[in-house]
């Protein structure tokens, strides 16, 4: 018979129980770390040992300028600042939407976005610009806050760039979400100066401009002596450019002139006709697809195929009729016919629009073309579908020649205004003597027109429209609202505060 020994069984039970319990793992077993992105702790660890990663979080701000999804959506249009430049050109009525295939940007040109806070085109710039502000604040906080005493040049230059980015973003926000920027006491957007602040109430237009100026002027000082390694970085001149625009928005023409003039004299020159258009079959200089090829380009990003930008998700896909994307397949955008008609007959810039009078209309096919379009004999879809390597520029010195002329005219110094404008246009228009005869409003209008013609598609006209409190009329090549006139403070030209800000910022309940 079975020899039962209870003690033995109890022992076994005890042994096995403890075995079960011992089998429990160490707490490290439950620790896992991401690899596709990095945790804040991993970033700190990398920065501590890897000099190549030291600038990583600062460069992370710049990367958002063109990153897909920086506006917080998965939309193909969500590619940062250049989407805004294009939308703003449409809203300022300079860029006509010539075809709606695939419905891209349709609600911008039909101006329903700007009445409907649910439309994600409102959310994208809001999220994008506040992302820039938050990333800047993270860098600023990392240096001890914007009041910190900085000792080394590296610290000063890092702080200077972060402040510049923050100021730049507030400059944009104050235009994109405010109907009338001339009303300095009117409501604008909230201000954040630290990365961990909870939702803030609206500040006034004046307060936001003041914040931008404070950040930019501080940056200007801190960036003294900073030599950048890449054109994407803010240096003193780019900061001065943004300052000139900000003072322009405030109609402080003395300061505008001062800063514009500083940039003009900073040694960037201006872009030559050969750089801004295609002058002949052997011309390989031009185009805006290589920011380092043109000295006058002050600020922009060098795009390499390693950045993995697909044509469908870039500015190129949306503006360049040669790329494999929407602009080539019936969703093309070109210059407003009324604006185009302002080109003088002897203006070389008309060659930027080789399809004028043909089915494509005033598309800037010889202004914005990807790096391979020319080599491939101007063939449709000559650009790559993925891994685009055409650059994007955000600022060029030309802007400040024109802004200097504008400020001089505003200040009543018409002589300087005329000289500046004539000098600027002399290689673009054969006979610039007509300018001598202009004065007063006519001169100001001419400077404005030349700014719009020169900077078409570069997102500058919207700011001009607002600082000059202009009205603009849609030409007859638009699909909607042709012939209608829009004032700078028209509700339909300014984004709505996005729904999520209204719903989830308890301090904000209404539109501007």
């Amino acid at each position: 018979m079975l020899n039962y020994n209870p003690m033995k069984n109890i022992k076994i039970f005890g042994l096995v129980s403890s075995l079960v319990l011992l089998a429990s793992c160490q707490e490290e077993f439950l620790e896992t770390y991401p690899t596709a992105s990095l945790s804040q702790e991993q970033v700190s660890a990398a920065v501590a040992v890897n000099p190549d990663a030291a600038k990583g979080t600062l460069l992370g701000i710049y990367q958002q300028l063109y990153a897909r999804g920086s506006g917080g959506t998965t939309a193909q249009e969500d590619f940062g600042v250049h989407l805004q430049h294009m939308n703003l050109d449409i809203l300022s009525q300079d860029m006509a939407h010539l075809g709606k295939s695939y419905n891209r940007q349709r609600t911008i040109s039909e101006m329903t976005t700007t009445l409907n806070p649910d439309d994600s085109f409102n959310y994208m710039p809001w999220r994008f610009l506040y992302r820039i502000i938050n990333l800047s604040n993270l860098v600023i906080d990392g240096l001890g806050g914007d009041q910190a005493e900085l000792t080394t040049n590296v610290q000063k230059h890092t702080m200077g760039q972060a402040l510049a980015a923050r100021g730049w973003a507030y400059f944009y926000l104050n235009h994109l979400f405010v109907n009338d920027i001339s009303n300095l006491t009117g409501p604008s957007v909230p201000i954040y100066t630290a990365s961990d602040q909870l939702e803030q109430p609206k500040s006034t237009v004046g307060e936001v401009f003041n914040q931008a100026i404070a950040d930019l002027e501080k940056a200007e000082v801190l960036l003294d002596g900073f030599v950048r390694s890449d054109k994407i970085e803010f240096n003193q001149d780019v900061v001065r450019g943004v300052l000139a625009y900000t003072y322009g928005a405030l109609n402080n023409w003395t300061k505008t002139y001062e800063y514009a003039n500083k940039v003009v004299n900073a040694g960037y020159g201006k872009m030559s006709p050969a750089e801004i258009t295609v002058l002949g079959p052997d011309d390989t200089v031009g185009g805006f697809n290589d920011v380092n090829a043109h000295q006058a380009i002050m600020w922009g990003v060098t795009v390499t195929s390693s950045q993995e930008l697909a044509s469908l998700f870039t500015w190129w896909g949306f503006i360049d009729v040669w790329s494999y994307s929407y602009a080539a397949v019936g969703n093309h955008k070109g210059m407003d016919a009324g604006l185009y008609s302002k080109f003088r007959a002897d203006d070389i810039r008309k060659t930027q629009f080789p399809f004028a009078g043909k089915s494509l209309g005033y598309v800037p096919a010889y202004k914005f073309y990807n790096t391979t379009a020319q080599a491939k004999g101007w063939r449709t879809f000559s650009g790559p579908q993925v891994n685009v390597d055409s650059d994007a520029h955000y600022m060029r010195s030309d802007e400040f020649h024109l802004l200097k002329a504008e400020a001089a005219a505003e200040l009543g110094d018409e002589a300087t205004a005329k000289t500046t404008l004539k000098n600027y246009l002399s290689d673009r228009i054969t006979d610039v003597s007509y300018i001598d005869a202009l004065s007063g409003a006519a001169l100001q209008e001419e400077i404005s027109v030349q700014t719009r013609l020169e900077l078409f598609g570069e997102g500058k006209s919207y700011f001009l429209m607002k600082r000059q409190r202009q009205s603009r009329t849609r030409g007859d090549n638009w699909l909607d609202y042709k012939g209608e006139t829009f004032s700078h403070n028209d509700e339909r030209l300014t984004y709505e505060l996005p729904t999520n800000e209204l719903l989830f910022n308890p301090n904000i309940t209404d539109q501007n």
Partner: protein
Amino acid sequence: MKTKLKGLLAFLLVFAVQIAFAQTKTVSGLVSDQDGAPLPGATVLVKGTNKGTTTDFDGNFSISAAQGDVLVFSFIGYVTKEVSVGNSSQLNVSLAQDAQALEEVIVTGFGDVSKKSFAGSAKVVAGENVSQKSFTNVSQALAGEVAGVAVFNTSGQPGSTSTVRIRGFGSVSGSQAPLYIVDDAPFGGSLNDINPNDIKSITVLKDASATSLYGARGANGVIVITTKRGKDAGNSINVQVKTGTNYQGVARYETIRSPEEYIGIAWDGVYQRGLRAANATTASATAYANANLFEIPGGGPVSDLPTIYNMWNVPSLANGNVDVAALIDPATGTVRPGVTRKYTPESWGDYTFQDANRNEVIMTISNVGENSSVYTSFGFIDDIGYATNTDFSRLNGRVAATHKIKDFIDVNTTLNYTQSESNNNGTGSSSSSQFWWVDNIPTVYPLFRRDADGNKIEDPIYGGYLYDYGLERGRGFGFATNGVADAKINVSRSKANSVNFNNNTTMNITDGVTLENNFAYQYYMNDGISLNEPFYSPAKGQGGLVSRDRAETKNYSIRTGLRFKKQIDEFNISAFLSHVATAYEYNYLSAERSKLVLPDGIDIANGVVNAPGYGYTDNERTESYIANVNTDYQNKYFLTVSYNKDASSRFINNRWGDFYSVGGAWALTEEEFLKDSKFFDFLKVKASYGTIGNSGGIGLYPGYNLYSINNLSDNISLAFTTKGNKDLTWEKSNQFNTGVDFEIGGFFSGSVEAYKKVTNDMFYDRQVGPSVGYASLKVNDGELINQGIEFDLDFKILNKGDFKLSAGINGEKFSNKLMALPIDPVTGEQQKFSVSGLYGNESGRSLFDYYTKEYTGVNPTTGAAEWTAYFEDKNNDGKFNTGDVRINSLTPYVNDNPEANIQSEKTDVYANATNKFLNKSIIPDVRGAFRLNASFKNFNLSTLFNYQLGGWAYDSAYATLMGNGYAGTNNFHVDIRNRWRQEGDVTDVPRQDAALQIQQNSSSSRFLTRSDFIALNNVRLGYNVPKSVANKLGLDNADLYITGDNLWLASKRKGFNPSTSITGGTGIYTYNPLSTLVFGLNVKL
């Protein structure tokens, strides 16, 4: 630890040997059923010991037992019998079939209990119910089988896995997906790894007392799959051959098929637009329509229909335009009689949809020995979809072995290998979708390019004819693409290999105490292959593009536990304590090159220009301690209590969570007062309550602030992207379940259950004002209540001689209510409202309450679509005018301005209309399935219908087909025939006006559709070859059958299939599930 184990084993071996000293003799005999047919694989046990055997192929057994021992004979589906060993060593036993389906075994928490004693909520689905359907994996086959389990067959892509939801929608931001358990271990592989034919049974666990046994991750229900062993099949060779066809049996939307009708509608649109110009007359509008129906170069286009697509023999005008006056009769707005075609554009569906084959062969070999059994199966399936280049093929082999070693160690091992390949061209959600093209391209556009004379052009590269990519002059639909052509000439393929291993060891330590160990490992490698060929595809600018990606998944789980069982008189107790650790690792790697040498070479070496590669690894770990006690007294009162402590690597500061459950049942028919009831054969009431957890749906690293790694001009750039929450912890839900199981009068049985599930500490992506720099933050907050009732009823209607008829119906009715939104840290109060797509969320409403604009119909004077616009009427004159405030979104406006005087009016400007709650939700009144089964002699017929009543779905595909674009931009649903044409027309379909009325078909209540449906899910007609005939053929058994799946569906409109998504909503890219007819032959040797 290894040495410790060895010592223990040695000790146990010695211990076991001692047992063998009892005096015994060999008892042998035959186990048969009530009709005398032998029962192979029946279990014979010496009561009170672990000594046992199973009957062989002929039902014979032999076992050594002492005189006076009691032998226990059991077989699934039969009443267990106990017989004492007497003098004789010969013992023949006949087992009676168990009439009560209630004797089903429920596999729960690493052990089996009979359904009779089960206190929780579960439903067992027999393996046959699943393998009889023509599906490649279990998820699709579950549809209609269990009350409270909703299965959404989201795609017709062969081999696709369905979305399964158990008891409503348990979480706002967390996962709502159930946990799968295969052979007692959490399963993280692909469901396609398991051949449905190898499945013995599926148990769906729904309530807390059942699901908590698997640790905390069962909050959304648990699906327990048990695979077959040798003892389930006996000694046999079984061959199944199935052959059949896949086709599109459920209707597509009814669209305009005639090019003449299409061009007439397009003309009317342009005409109506012309009519709305200043000072327009019918004559000026006709002239406008004639001039603008086709797109001419340089014209101000309201048309995207280039003149080269004029397919009719009508002349051209001097300006290159088509002479539309010769084509269209303005009086009727239709093509003039007598106009002939230059060519007939292909019907695109004819070239991309086809009836296709489905073939399957399964062979299983099973062998049962005294102490071991082996089950081996091989399966091959080739399943081709009705859309071009969509298919799935799979080869799988499985070996399952059971061993009994030294009388006290049981080892149960399975090894499964699966290789599969799937092509899914043209099934994405983009302009490459074949389905988008077939329904939405205007019928004037041909599939093949035409020359000026209307002739097709030969393709110099691939042969055949050149596909039309619409490039020449910009086709208004899908300019520069051709989804059907791309589906044919490109490659979109995935090849998977997987190995699943599962080993379960149990050791009987002493009377009633067992040590268990289970190790399960799943390896899954997928090779994704994508090729865009160099001449026509989207990558032609780069000379073609090939990309490959490898995704490797490794999962393992180790469970160690102790089980204890004891009977004291009429009191039974069983308990277990176990520890489970799981690890998941996912590794991804991709490479890509362009400029291809061979147009169809799918290896990276075939390209010469390198594109960036990518790769990363994800990890997840979990750990659980689980304790459970089950008791019953007199087979009448049942109580189960469990506790578990779980940890997940997803959480940082609060990794561990505590969970518990308790359940009880009372078998009333065991009581004296009901024991002899003629009415109740069986009656049990039960209730359970418990708290269980969820860690899914929040990503693997929700605790960390995450930074993206980017290349900025070849420098490292790191950008903060996602706000983490280190305090995030388990989402908990408190679940109460009660129900009754019954069988009445031998013909009516079933169960009715009610549940309430309160989820708090809920995963909630709390939205923030995006100005803070991020969009949302994951928190444990808010509260959600799901409650409902479920019924599952079976009727044995007739049982007369050779004819049997039975029916069953199941269903669920549930509600889903958000009770609290998360706290806003700025105010310290709950957020009041949020919007998620078409749904608005506020306390007291379901997560799926429609919040959009309200369509009020068509203005009979203008033909424009109209919606309701609300405004704050500041001057209180009932009209919107200066000073009044337009309201974009009603609920937050009222929240912010409770005193506002709000009025409404109709508007034909969509942008002015107001978003509001429509008091409609996706939640149906009732949904479920019913079946009707009949058998006559050797024939049997079974049917399964799914149904849903109540609830609303947004028919987005239909909305697209009711659009109002420029001429040539999209095809129409036939309902467009009912559109408003002239003043006084009373209709629900607004005018066509070539996009003049902006956003005419944008989201609104206009496209909310009742999601009622009834569908014939499965029908099967079988014939069992009489045993005598089969035996003459040298077979043990043979049966033939025809089965049809997804044969028919009736819904609000043809093509609208609300069963393909959780919300019932449709999409323009949907691959509607296949219909399948299969003939099968099943032979047992």
